[in-house]
């Protein structure tokens, strides 16, 4: 187990360094930071002095190492726009994103697990077919369009729910959460359902299920105690590995609903050439994603001893 954890930690480190290099190179190619920071009418000499002061004239490799050393200490520099520390800005937005992703995951699993069980258990039935339609629709759906339609229907016309924004803490927040949560949940549910379904189909054809049935256990116990329990582990693993994709869905959802999370921040900072914030968002998200992937791996390792290589 120890070697396994060390191995995974090294992998995690490599991934985070890789992503930080990519984002550093990209943001430095977006444009000259001097152009962003100084007004356009600044004379050439002053620009060069400023470039020198800020260290933008050094080789990119040196600049990256400098960036990496600061980043490890959680310092990504100050936002070009608000002059506040980029790390603080990103961390302030984190709760909104976590609220959205966690609640959407809950919604998705609450829909997907029963659906997956029924469609595997009653294979080729009307339920199975309906579920397949749900899955195929979900996978083809551009969720930003779904979000827009929900806003127009429930937010603007029916006025049942707030069309966008975050709302004050409490009931208002929950009301604001419903539509984005539904959209992101709809993004995640199809994949989850397919995982549960294929896992259950696999489990139901196993010998231990036949044995359990032969012992005369009730179908309910066979289904939930035996089959489902063995299905859940791979489902958790894959969901954990897809956390990055879920965040991708969150970026889209946040931009449609003006949900003030990290995804919206990322889009805004890219649009405004606010490099320190873009870099902070990308690296912090990479750390978060790697951390989630690792924890899922470890939890599954504890649950399922066969995985500890």
């Amino acid at each position: 187990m120890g070697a396994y954890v060390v191995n995974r930690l090294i992998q995690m480190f490599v991934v985070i360094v890789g992503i930080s290099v990519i984002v550093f190179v990209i943001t430095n190619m977006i444009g000259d930071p001097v152009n962003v920071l100084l007004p356009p009418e600044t004379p050439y000499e002053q620009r060069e002095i400023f470039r020198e002061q800020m260290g933008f004239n050094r080789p990119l490799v040196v600049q990256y190492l400098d960036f990496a050393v600061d980043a490890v200490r959680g310092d990504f520099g100050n936002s070009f726009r608000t002059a506040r520390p980029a790390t603080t800005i990103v961390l302030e937005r984190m709760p909104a994103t976590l609220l959205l992703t966690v609640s959407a995951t809950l919604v998705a699993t609450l829909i997907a697990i029963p659906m997956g069980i029924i469609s595997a258990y009653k294979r080729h039935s009307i339920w199975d077919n309906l579920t397949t339609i749900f899955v195929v629709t979900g996978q083809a759906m551009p969720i930003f369009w779904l979000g827009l339609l929900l806003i127009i229907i429930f937010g603007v016309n029916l006025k049942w729910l707030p069309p966008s924004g975050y709302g004050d803490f409490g009931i208002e927040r929950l009301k604001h959460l419903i539509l984005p949560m539904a959209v992101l949940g709809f993004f995640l549910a199809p994949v989850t359902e397919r995982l549960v379904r294929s896992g259950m189909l696999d489990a139901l054809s196993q010998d231990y299920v036949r044995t359990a049935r032969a012992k005369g256990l009730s179908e309910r116990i066979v289904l939930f105690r035996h089959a489902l329990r063995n299905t859940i582990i791979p489902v958790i693993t894959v969901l954990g590995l897809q956390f990055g994709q879920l965040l991708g869905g969150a970026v889209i959802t946040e931009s449609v609903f003006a949900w003030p999370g990290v995804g919206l921040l990322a889009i805004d900072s890219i649009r405004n050439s606010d490099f320190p914030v873009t870099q902070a968002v990308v690296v912090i998200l990479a750390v978060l994603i790697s951390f989630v992937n690792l924890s899922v791996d470890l939890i599954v390792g504890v649950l399922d001893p066969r995985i500890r290589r």
Partner: protein
Amino acid sequence: MASVGTSTPETTATLFSPNRVRRRTLRGVLAAAWKLRLSVAGATVLILLILMAIFAPLLTPYTTNEGSIRNRLQPPVWQEGGTWSHPLGTDGIGRDYATRLLYGARVALAVGLLATLISGVIGVFFGVIAGYFGGKIDTLISTLVNIMLTFPFILLALCIIAVLGSSFTNVVFVLGIGAWPIYTRVMKFEVERIKSLEYMSAARVIGLRNSRMIWRHVMPNLVNTIIVLGTVQVARLIIAEAFLSYLGLGIQPPTPTWGQMLQESIAFSFTWSDIWLPTLPGLAIFITTLSINFVGDGLRDLIDPRERAVL
């Protein structure tokens, strides 16, 4: 020699497939078509869409950017006030909505296909190299794949498009560059599996060169998987392109795209009677991706019924 050289996909996976014989007769084909009716429907819609996109200039008397502000926001023909001169209405500055949707199909399909082609070529290349040679090359490629798959694809695409600026070529390039790792991951495992098959050892024993082994004996066995994977990717990339355009970071006006039309429609749709404005471009995206996914599903069933639930 000949017995080794004639190794095709038939000789490995499909040889043991129970469907192999049945599929060969006409009745079998018809039966399969009925079983795959959704895919057949999807393929039909898709072909229609492609034809409409190609022949767009013949199908409409208007161009994408002509229109008079006096004609703005005419409703579609099924709503009160709609006329056949603009069957799907006009947009906020009076341009014919149907025309813009038709031309939008060109962009969506072209971007989807080209980006899939680029990512497919890169991804399969890396996947075959990693799976076939293994070792350090594999470690290097797999690490890169891990990095790219860990991180949300759309964020990377946004970052890169901000660097390059938005144009048709750049959007295709960014989506192509962003989407290859999925092929690499799948191909690598496929190649590793194929490598362990007996006929591969036989081919190695008779001393075939690596390039010949790959082209003659590995690649033919990958074609099925590549086609299925690629089909689904086209749909995914069409949605990604639409989202970039929706954010205003995709292909720029005056070229009409569905995502852009969606963005523009927001400003004008605040009542029930205006809801067609955002509905139509989104529906165009949805119908396209849905029919592509149906086709992909059918291909997957035809090629390997067992995989149906997996991907």
